[in-house]
Every structure is written in structure tokens, then in C-alpha cells.
């Protein structure tokens, strides 16, 4: 499409645009359904039967079952939706970030208390590629 995606070169993130929204639609609709207790109860009683109501892809379904938080985003999930699944599991936004960054809760929290992740070296994909080249 001719609208250029000038945000595609930001590393370690997704921009939830229409293409991702289409891809993740059923996954995200499943996630938001968990905002209601009646649905959380039904999901927790029988995950498979509940997931059958949302015609998502097999990969998306597996990522839900695995609670593979990054994979959910790669497959079109959006963090505000996937956080509803996390909330169901008793995981808050900060704990979820500990999981997604692979840092774990303690190290992630310590980074935030120390002022957070610096924008230096985190603006462009090329900066991340260089880092990987170094290691």
C-alpha cells in the first residue's frame, strides 16, 4: 500500500495498524471478552471449549494456551487486549513487561526505578542490529 510505514524501523515494538488489527481480530476479541467475570469463569473452567468460540489461527490459539506473550503480539495481538488475558492470570502490566523483555520482574522493576530504558540506542532497528552484531 502506498501509505508508507515510517514507524517500521523502530526496534522491539509493534505499531498496531490496520494490517495488524486484521490479523489479530479474533485473538483480540477473545482477549477483551475476559474483561467480564462470567467469561473469565467460563474460560478458566474449560479453555479449549471457550477458545472454540473465536475462530483464530492455530498459531494464535497455541500462543494463548502457552501464554507466549511476545508471540501473541507477533501474531496481531495488541498489548491492551493481551493484558486482559494476563489479568485473568493475576499478572499486571509491570509483571507482563518483565516477561516480554525476558528480564524477569525484579530486574525490570529495578530498571524502571532507575529511570527506565533509555531512548539512546533504542530508536532505530539499525542500532539493535549493530548490538547483535557486537555480541
Amino acid at each position, binding site marked *: 500500500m502506498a501509505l508508507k510505514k515510517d514507524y517500521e524501523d523502530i*526496534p522491539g*515494538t509493534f505499531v498496531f495498524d490496520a494490517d495488524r488489527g486484521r490479523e489479530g481480530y479474533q485473538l483480540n476479541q477473545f482477549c477483551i471478552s475476559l*474483561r467480564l467475570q462470567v467469561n473469565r469463569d467460563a474460560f478458566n473452567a474449560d479453555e479449549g471449549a471457550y477458545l472454540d468460540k473465536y475462530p483464530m489461527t492455530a498459531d494464535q490459539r497455541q500462543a494463548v494456551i502457552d501464554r507466549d506473550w511476545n508471540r501473541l503480539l507477533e501474531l496481531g495481538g495488541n498489548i491492551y487486549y493481551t493484558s486482559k488475558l494476563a489479568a*485473568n492470570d493475576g499478572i499486571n502490566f509491570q509483571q507482563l513487561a518483565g516477561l516480554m523483555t525476558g528480564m524477569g520482574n525484579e530486574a*525490570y522493576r529495578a530498571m524502571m526505578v532507575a*529511570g527506565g*530504558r533509555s*531512548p539512546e540506542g533504542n530508536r532505530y532497528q539499525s542500532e539493535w542490529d549493530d548490538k547483535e552484531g557486537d555480541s
Partner: protein
Amino acid sequence: MARITAGVGCSHVPAIGVAMDQGITEQPYWVPVFEGFEKSREWMKAQNADVIFLVYNDHCTVFDASCIPTFALGCAPEFAPADEGWGPRPVPVVKNHQVMASHIAQSLILDEFDITIMNEMEVDHGLTVPMSVMFGDKGPDDEWPCLVIPLCVNVVQYPAPTGNRCYNLGKAIRRAVESFDEDLNVVIFGTGGMSHQLQYKRAGLINKEWDTQFLDRLTSDPVALSQTPHVEYLREAGSEGVEMVMWHVMRGALDDDVTEVHRHYHVPASNTAVGHIILENNKDRIAAE
């Protein structure tokens, strides 16, 4: 006639609501967050607002992916706190000035803003957390001290409205308020931000320098600030930092000449840089003194 006299910019971090609801605001982690709102609560009380026009976003709570309005104006009689996955927040139901809200809706549409009118709506932390930090602890059986007209902006699915559009919407809201006959003191809130990235491998990004210049330029250079492209928010302030477009609505609704009467900035609350500012129209300040 009704008048907008002041503006409030304010992060709406859900964890701030949780800290208040759980009564853990005295913990060392939270003390510096809430200290910065002490003066704000005094100011808010003294301001004696009749109505808050509150610009916020829903976080895939009340609006699912089936219907995504760019600007949804709350015209229902009241707005209950929504269940965001762990039960509704124990705070009062928000009451609307319904006649004024639908006056504003009509005025905005005739002014060529393509508003979606919401005659039923719940509200999530995006709206209730700013109310809590500005008014303090209130239980579900209490009442908020003033009425609230909510404007819910899509900032989740790209693209959010442009900063320019938001700024001009602020001007249109001002025209709508000023054409409402009742004599009302209106304060406008722009909420969300500051820098934060909640998702994926870059989660935790905080850009204090960028946030600081954003707060500075709200007073000194608001028109140019509103021209900031989406990609700059995403790159510099994190994928969820784009929420800050909503502050331009607030700024656009004020006079060109404003005074910053309070600022608060602290890192972190959960994943987020907490930012907060209070702006008064200069002419309203002079009148008040």
C-alpha cells in the same frame, strides 16, 4: 455563558488507581508519585469547577475491535467504572451534564468534527485515574464533586488523530462551551502519557528529556508542538506515548496565553513516566487575583 478557565494534563497510569484502591500510597515506591498531586488537589478544590471536560482513551475495555470511533463523546446520563479484568474500580459513578454534552456534540458536528455520540458507555482507568488523583479517595457510594463530559479518543489502533486535529478540536470544544447559555466554570483535562512503552522487547522506555520539552512547550510553543508527527511519539516516547496527542485537545481549548501554575514529573509508576501540569488562562488569573 459557560467558560473554560483552566487545563490539566495528567497521566492516567492504571497502577496509580490500584495503589489508591489498595491503600498503599504511603509505600516508598508510591510516595513521590502522590506528593506531586497534593498541590493539585488543593488547586482543584479552589477552582470550584462545575464541569470537567475530560479527554481520555479507552484501553480496549469498553470499546472492542468491532467499532473504533476516532472521537466518541459521552452523552449518556452517567458512566459507570468498567471491569478491566480484575473487577470495576471502587470509585463513584461519573455523572454527566447531559444537556451540555449533547449541545457540544451538535456544535462539534456543525463545526465539521465527525464525532461519534455515545448514549451508553462505561469508563476505564483512562478516565477514573485522573479523577482520583485530582480529587483524592472516593468510594463507590461517594459522589465526584462535579459533573464530567468524557471524550474518548482512539489512540490504540494506528493512526490516532493528528496532533493538529486534536488541537483544532480543542478550539471547537471551546466554541461549543462558550455558546452554551448556562453560567458554568469548565476545566478541561487532557490525559495519558507521558513516555511509556508497555509492550514487547523495548518495554520500559522512558524519555525524560523529551517529556520535559513537551511539558515546557505546552506553555511556550503549543502550535508547533501540536505538529509533532506520530512517528516521533512512537520512536521517542514509546509505542503508548502517542496518547499524548490528547493533551493537545486540552491546550487548544485554552487561551494562547497561559501560565503554568503547577508541574509534577516522576519516574516510574509501573512502566510509565508520570507527568502532570496545570495551566490557567492568563486573563482568568488576572480576574481571579
